[in-house]
């Protein structure tokens, strides 16, 4: 079947302004958007640039805006995108390097701010630290975030203010604060209990809608907000 793709193009070495370019290609049954743009890149227009690696929804490289919403290209089946032209653009809210390539540095810098690593002060056992399946379940969903950035870049609070840590970084904070083994809750709470932290979340839900791993990010941010409030009393 032939499908039309309208793709955001911008090469800072050549273009003053971005523009959209249309490609019409034959797509096969079962193709994802990634298959289609790979095909365009391989056989139609080699100058097209985008990121991808695993093509199996786990590395987080291929997040982009497809028909106006953040999704993983490798997860998005073309047949579920309706009949019309498919519009492909870079993630919103981050500076564009070229075509679908955005500068992810602001995203990772925000992540680094929440001390996104296991913290333990008391001595470790020789073997493993115990954690029951129930305790693990609390953070299980949060721990499978693939750092694709679809959430943070869909958040209007982040668009307004890139200093906002954003849902991905807050989710990471949750993953550690609510880990029964971790001992860094206090220092992390101090970081996220901030104008640019949890209080910038207005429950807009774009993040949760965008998350390709279907993580209910908003829910976890709410947990953090409640924890911060509780600790005031």
């Amino acid at each position: 079947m032939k499908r039309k793709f309208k793709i955001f193009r911008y090469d800072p070495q050549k273009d003053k302004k971005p523009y959209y370019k249309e490609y019409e290609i034959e797509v096969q049954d079962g193709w994802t958007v990634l298959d289609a743009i790979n095909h365009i890149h391989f056989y139609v227009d080699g100058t097209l640039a985008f990121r991808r690696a695993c093509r199996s929804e786990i590395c987080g490289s291929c997040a982009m805006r497809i028909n106006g919403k953040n999704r993983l290209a490798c997860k998005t089946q073309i047949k579920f995108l309706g009949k019309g032209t498919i519009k492909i653009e870079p993630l919103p809210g981050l500076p564009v390097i070229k075509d679908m390539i955005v500068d992810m540095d602001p995203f990772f810098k925000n992540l680094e701010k929440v001390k996104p690593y296991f913290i333990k002060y008391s001595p470790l056992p020789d073997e493993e630290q115990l954690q029951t399946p129930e305790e693990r379940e609390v953070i299980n969903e949060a721990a499978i975030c693939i750092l694709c950035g679809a959430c943070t870049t869909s958040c209007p609070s982040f668009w307004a203010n890139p200093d906002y840590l954003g849902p991905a970084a807050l989710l990471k904070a949750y993953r550690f604060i609510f880990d029964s083994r971790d001992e860094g809750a206090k220092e992390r709470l101090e970081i996220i209990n901030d104008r640019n932290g949890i209080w910038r979340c207005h429950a807009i839900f774009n993040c949760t809608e965008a998350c390709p791993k279907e993580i209910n990010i908003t829910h976890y941010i709410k947990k953090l907000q409640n924890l911060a409030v509780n600790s005031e009393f």
Partner: protein
Amino acid sequence: MLKPKWFYPSYKKDVGEWAWILHRLGGLALIFYLFLHIFVTNRLAAGPEAFNATMKALSTPLFKFLEWGLWGVILFHAFNGIRLVLVDFAGASKYQKALFWIAFVLFLALWIPAAWKFFI
């Protein structure tokens, strides 16, 4: 090294974002109305005549219409506000879309029929 460029984000809005935009605009409208309202009701302190005169001046069709609009703003902000509180404290984030539609229906149901009270 070329600096990457920022472009204004355009995004397909889902109910959550619509709710937020309406809630925010509504909240702003309400706070500005509240400022006016407090000044106007202060005419109460000036005694019955002054107050009634002001109220009379404010009962033109235009003001009636605005008042009806205000009622709509209040309803939406109030019901969506409850939705937000449920999400915040009752773990209702999974049901946020359903809650939005409930809030929206309540808002319409109480707002549209109320028109006759203002115009008739």
